[in-house]
């Protein structure tokens, strides 16, 4: 299994509070992703990173920001949590430290963080 951990695994917070979720990998993979999973929606991409300090938006990025200051860590921040952000959040990684342009589509997922916003 890919070395991916997520913290915290469970969190309950109140509307309007900031929340940061952490994804940590030990695989030295270039690409990291944040998804959310909701009933009836499958997994939807929030943000992704294609290198240190290189990030971009996904399908459902509103209300979320990300940062990647080290290869191994990818942080997802909810600046002011809302009830619509209650969800299960998954981090994923793909790729190796291979040459530029090397395509690596298979993603490996972390165990998830269950976030409840009251």
């Amino acid at each position, binding site marked *: 299994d890919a070395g*991916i951990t997520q913290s915290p695994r469970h969190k309950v917070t109140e509307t309007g509070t900031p929340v940061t979720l952490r994804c940590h990998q030990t695989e030295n993979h270039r*690409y990291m*992703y944040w*998804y959310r999973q909701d009933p*009836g*929606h*499958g*997994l*939807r*991409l929030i943000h*992704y990173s*294609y290198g240190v300090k*290189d990030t*971009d*938006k*996904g399908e459902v990025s509103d209300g979320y920001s990300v940062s990647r200051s080290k290869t191994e860590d990818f942080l997802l921040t909810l600046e002011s949590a809302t009830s619509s952000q209650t969800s299960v959040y*998954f981090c994923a990684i*793909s790729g190796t430290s291979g040459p530029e*342009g090397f*395509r*690596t*589509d*298979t*993603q*490996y*997922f*972390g*165990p*998830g963080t269950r976030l409840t916003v009251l």
Partner: protein
Amino acid sequence: DQQVKQNSPSLSVQEGRISILNCDYTNSMFDYFLWYKKYPAEGPTFLISISSIKDKNEDGRFTVFLNKSAKHLSLHIVPSQPGDSAVYFCAASGFVGNSGYALNFGKGTSLLVTP
């Protein structure tokens, strides 16, 4: 707009029989397809993939078939086992933004294999 569709939310199969899970996609630019398996309270686990230059890929009991002209792929599990009971997600890879590939997921099919 959903670009990857799994039209069967659930499927029930007897142990030992074949399970067939279906997936359709709309974007002809997708050229790499994957199946993931997910148990409750765990992250999705990569199962099998197929490139668009192939029409079949096999790995043990799992075979994925791709019909590019119909924009359709299917996952066959033979023989099905109770441990295969899980939610199966179909995903298609597409280029996004700056030099990245992201997966577009279907909504999943819940497979139940009964003894």
